């Protein structure tokens, strides 16, 4: 059962760690100062959440948070490809839409995890949900505002949604050992969570004048296997950057 628990916790933690890192790349590059600070603050929260998730495994005698974050082989990561995508040419519409789709998914996952039969995870979800509300408010407010503002803003958000939707869909790819997790009552099936997520975002996107379409099988195919260790094209460069300092002196005490 420890393998199932590790599979679940790493899927949650790795998403947070990499999302945090990508958001942090906006420091100094936000369209306005307040957005610099917002993305930096959200990044700090997500990285802290990753650490708290890893700690659940550390408490069971598995690796330390630093070992999980900085000393793993790429195929030991369980992140979704959505969070590995670069910020490309720093298109704020793309960053905002990823933040919106991701944080809506987090709300759904955390709400479900509050009722997890694995108590340490349920307690942590309760805590994280209280912090995530601010992230959600930020993403929601900007998508509503920009979705119905100028034509350019609308087009950029719609194009970001078109590009990102298959990736966001795959946040809910079935995890290894998922039937065991579901049977233990740790988390509902990923496909149920995806349906809840769709039911939530659809009216919100509609309010902002945006539409999504169900991704085709061919769009989803290259994204499959992320929860099983298959990394995206962008992972290696990201990981090299994340681990640059720790790798320079692996024995250092922090």
């Amino acid at each position, binding site marked *: 059962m420890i393998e199932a628990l590790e599979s679940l916790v790493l899927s949650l933690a790795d998403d947070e760690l990499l999302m945090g890192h990508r958001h942090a790349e906006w420091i100094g590059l936000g369209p306005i100062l*307040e957005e610099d600070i917002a993305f930096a603050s959200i990044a700090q929260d*997500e990285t802290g959440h990753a650490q708290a998730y890893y700690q659940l495994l550390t408490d069971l005698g598995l690796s330390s948070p630093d070992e999980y974050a900085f000393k793993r082989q790429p195929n030991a990561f369980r992140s979704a490809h959505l969070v590995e995508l670069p910020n490309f040419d720093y298109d704020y519409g793309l960053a905002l839409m990823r933040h919106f789709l991701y944080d809506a998914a987090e709300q759904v996952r955390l709400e479900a995890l509050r009722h997890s039969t694995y108590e340490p995870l349920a307690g942590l979800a309760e805590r994280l949900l209280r912090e995530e509300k601010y992230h959600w408010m930020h993403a929601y407010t900007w998508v509503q505002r920009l979705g119905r503002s100028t034509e350019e803003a609308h087009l950029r958000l719609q194009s970001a949604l078109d590009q990102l939707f298959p990736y966001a869909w795959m946040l809910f790819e079935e995890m290894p050992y998922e039937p065991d997790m579901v049977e233990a009552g740790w988390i509902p099936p990923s496909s149920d969570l995806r349906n809840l997520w769709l039911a939530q975002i659809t009216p919100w996107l509609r309010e902002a004048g945006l539409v999504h379409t169900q991704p085709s099988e061919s769009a989803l195919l290259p994204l499959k296997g992320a929860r099983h260790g298959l990394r995206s094209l962008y992972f290696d460069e990201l990981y090299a950057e994340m681990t640059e300092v720790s790798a320079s002196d692996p024995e250092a005490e922090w």
Partner: protein
Amino acid sequence: MKASLTPDTIREWLKSIPDPEIPHVSVVDMGMVGEIRVEEEGVQVELIPTFAGCPAVKLLQQSIEALLREKGLKPKVHVEYSRPWQAEYVTEAGWTALRKAGFAIPKKLTDDPREMFSEVACPRCHSEAVSLTSPFGPTACRAIFYCHSCGEAFELFKPPL
């Protein structure tokens, strides 16, 4: 372990440790010190971070352990993530110190962020003609506002909901 040592005495000592990000308030008045247990093997202190990603946690952990070691004790600080910190943990002295330091305090603590950011008054001129500039400020527990009445920016102490 000295027989006379009680958790209350230790809590009193810890009031000399400031919150590193809001040094006007002690870690105790901020409600971050949970259960304290005095046992044969040493003293156990539960530390409850306001936000899970709070970068001050490690420093606080070290400061508390250092202070208790100076008192000749064997301390162990456990950081508690599986229990949320709550605004209700802030003591009366804590709220007073926050106000004195120039923070606005939310009038309502609800789980809807939009409601919590309404009915905020400027800590300088007390006007309610204010607007939210950003829910994110210099630290995770602070939001930025602007007062249309006196033209000054100010910060709201923002608890996790």
